[in-house]
């Protein structure tokens, strides 16, 4: 009874989170570990354990792959800091012209599948690419290099940092910095000593996510890295499953190594944040006054415009140019441009329309489920007590370190057991579970960072006033983290709508998804048709959330604060 008083009713939510995460994350993960140990697990046999370990670990390329993976992960992290932090600070503390426009444009990179964005870059920058066709400049050598790859991945991932940090600094507000200034600190000093440190949870959480996403990313390293011999762990894993003879245990072992890297990053992040207090949302009314930029307005706007062009404009234009081209070899000549590919998609060639409907429904279902579960999990982790919290937090982090293809294999191994009375396998539900597993870290990270800033006294006050724990969660906590949560749910929707690797492997027979359709077209050499589908998917995954938010703001008025 005493313990129950102390946990203050977080217990129930903790149990909900724990059980859901066990089903969605832990079960497939356990099967991956078993697969790493028992090579014939798929046939239901536990014979010959660990015969693969020696061969996989003794591979001299393994160290090399790990080194490349770390280089890429850290490089992309630094790239995202360099691009995302200054923009986020400017956005949070100052009145940036066209702020809402930049927010929307910075959301778009989430909607562009990384391998499509990279293909857009390749089509633009390679010799005789669009850039050279239009201007005569050939930037191929820059593109096909490690710095080029880091830059492109940073441009694709920096919005993670931008949105998390700008929201966190906004929540910190200028108030604490102003207190510093009252005590005599100059603006820059007040920012670096007060505001930025208070925003650390958001920054650290988003950087961790960037690192995990960068080392787990397949599309860009596969498309770009292979051109200059830069292989990472994920491409190593994919190679083991990309042709006969396939090596599932080897892929599982490499995945566990990848998980290890992410867990180390995760523990470092926890250590940095441990033992400090980041409560800034205390229930006292706050003025949300932002300062004017003054003379800096023009350069700051120019910086926002440049990043928006590179991260969103250029890939989209390249995708659109390819979609409008009748043939790739025809180039950007008026005679070679037309709407033929769009006509084919809307004529439902190859099941294009079913693919759109399937993926968009799955995306919405995943966003709602992962968002709800993410909020509960983050609440239990941040505000709960007891030993289970670290386990829960690690469990919620795990999938971001697992390559999609490995999650897929784990799902099949787990859910296709003959003794299961009912199974989601071979129904579309398996895709919903797989997407939730892969994407759960996003809402958990965003919501945790937001919960960390909410002072405990708010909750205590509500309890004193007689609210029950669940009421506190939904009336006090949920509304306060809603802006962060909604942002992450949009991200989940976008990524789930176009997820490629897991979709390809666990999709139930006969079910087509957007990514599956695009992949089929590329595989058949119909790049134009694939790019057309990508373009339509990007437009839809951008428009649907925007309309949703507009509708929510209309209904809820000022109470809805997501993406303001």
């Amino acid at each position: 009874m005493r313990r129950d008083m102390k946990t203050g009713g977080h217990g129930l939510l903790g149990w909900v989170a724990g059980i859901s995460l066990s089903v969605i994350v832990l079960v497939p993960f356990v099967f991956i570990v078993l697969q790493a140990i028992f090579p014939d697990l798929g046939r239901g046999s536990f014979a010959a354990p660990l015969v693969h370990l020696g061969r996989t670990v003794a591979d001299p390329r393994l160290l090399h792959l790990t080194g490349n993976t770390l280089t890429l992960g850290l490089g992309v992290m630094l790239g995202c800091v360099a691009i995302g932090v200054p923009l986020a600070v400017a956005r949070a503390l100052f009145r940036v012209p066209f702020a809402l426009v930049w927010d929307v444009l910075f959301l778009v990179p989430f909607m562009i599948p990384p391998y499509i964005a990279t293909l857009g870059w390749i089509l633009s920058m390679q010799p005789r690419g669009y850039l050279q066709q239009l201007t005569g400049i050939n930037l191929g050598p820059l593109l096909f290099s490690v710095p080029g790859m880091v830059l492109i991945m940073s441009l694709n991932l920096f919005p993670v940092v931008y949105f998390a940090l700008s929201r966190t600094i906004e929540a910190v507000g200028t108030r604490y910095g102003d207190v510093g200034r009252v005590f005599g600190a100059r603006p820059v000093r007040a920012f670096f000593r007060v505001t930025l440190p208070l925003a650390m949870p958001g920054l650290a959480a988003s950087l961790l996510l960037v690192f995990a996403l960068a080392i787990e990313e397949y599309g860009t390293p596969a498309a770009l890295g292979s051109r200059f011999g830069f292989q990472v762990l994920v491409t190593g894993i994919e190679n083991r499953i990309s042709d006969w003879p396939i090596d599932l245990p080897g892929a599982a072992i490499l995945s566990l190594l990848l998980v290890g890297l992410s867990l180390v990053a995760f523990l470092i992040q926890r250590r940095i944040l441990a033992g400090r207090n980041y409560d800034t949302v205390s229930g006292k009314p706050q003025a949300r006054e932002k300062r004017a930029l003054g003379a800096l307005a023009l350069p700051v706007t120019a910086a926002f415009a440049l990043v928006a062009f590179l991260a969103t404009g250029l890939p989209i234009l390249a995708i659109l140019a390819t979609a409008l081209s009748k043939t790739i070899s025809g180039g950007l000549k008026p005679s070679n441009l037309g709407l033929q590919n769009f006509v084919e998609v809307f004529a439902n060639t190859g099941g294009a329309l079913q693919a759109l409907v399937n993926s968009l429904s799955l995306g919405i279902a995943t966003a709602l489920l992962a968002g709800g579960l993410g909020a509960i999990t983050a609440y239990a982790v941040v505000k709960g007590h007891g030993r289970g919290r670290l386990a829960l937090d690690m469990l919620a982090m795990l999938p971001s370190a697992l390559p999609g293809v490995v999650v897929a294999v784990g799902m099949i191994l787990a859910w296709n057991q003959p003794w299961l009375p009912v199974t989601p396998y071979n129904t579309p539900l398996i895709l919903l579970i797989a997407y939730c597993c892969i994407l759960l870290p996003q809402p958990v990270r965003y919501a945790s960072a937001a919960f960390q800033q909410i002072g405990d006294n708010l909750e205590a006050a509500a309890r004193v006033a007689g609210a029950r724990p669940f009421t506190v969660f939904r009336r006090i906590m949920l509304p306060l983290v809603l802006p962060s949560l909604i942002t992450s749910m949009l991200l989940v929707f976008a990524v789930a709508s176009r997820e490629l690797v897991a979709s390809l492997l666990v999709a139930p027979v006969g079910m087509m998804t957007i990514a599956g359709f695009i992949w089929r077209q590329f595989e058949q050499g119909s790049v134009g048709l694939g790019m057309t589908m990508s373009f339509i998917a990007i437009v839809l995954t951008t428009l649907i959330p925007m309309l949703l938010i507009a509708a929510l703001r209309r209904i809820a008025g000022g109470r809805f604060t997501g993406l303001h």
Partner: protein
Amino acid sequence: MRAFTAAMGLALALGASLMASPAMADITVYSAGPGGLIDKLAKGYTEKTGVKVNVFQATTGKIMARIESEAANPVVDVLISASWDTASDFAKRGWLVAYASPNAAMVPDFLKNDTAVAQGISALGIAWNPASGTPRPTEWADLAKPAYKDLVTLPDPAQSGASFELVAALQAKNGWGLFKDLAANGAIVAGANAEALNPVMQGAKAAVFGAVDYISLAAKAKGESIDVIFPASGTVIAPRPMMILKWSKQPDASKAFIDYVLSDEGQKAVAATYLMPARSDVKANRPLISDLKILPVDAAAVYGTRDTTLAEFAKLLAK
């Protein structure tokens, strides 16, 4: 909160509405690309027999990963792979049903055995962009000449069974010299088949060394500036085996599916994708096996040394 509960409810409802298991009388076919072909074959078969076909299409590797993971509780009835080696391996595991389709009479003997028969055949060639400003290559060795400096891509043999067989066959014939010359001439390994072809279509590169022919031929038919050249010194072919799995609960419907693919109608659909039809009496709008010189590939030997061949290749081309 009502909104929150409603949202979770909606998520579950959406998920539940997606729950729809394939009915029992259907057959399930796992097939390697091209995607349009298997859709067409499935549709034609259903029209003929009334039996529904559930299709799962992916790369050969992904399909095999799925079958390996599912092996404790398999669902696939018919498998169409892009690599004959899978048929040999599955036969060795005792996973296949022996079947000789009456429609396979005109399929040459080297494209069938007790448990597998070819659906169609692809060959590897040089895919060359005539607008690239380079002379038309006729031989593999041409691509190591200065005219093609930095302008050649190769599909990764680690990701494509056919490319691996080409590398193994050429290496068995002439040693590693040609690949050393290619590397010195700036040739690059660019992912799987499609990734090797794309830069050639746009003109960033001039030629693919060992492109899968039907993809390039289909691209050419769409108006892309691409030619496929089969070197007179020889190339390799990749017959695409069809097989019935022993755990199939619908063996008769599965056999009927194989019969349909080997029927006139089925083989015409195969030919329409620019694959070579398996039956020698079905016409196709492309060079056929009899027009090509085929390099000998001793499957047991080359697959026995696959790892060392791939490692040597990777070292030479600095992958």
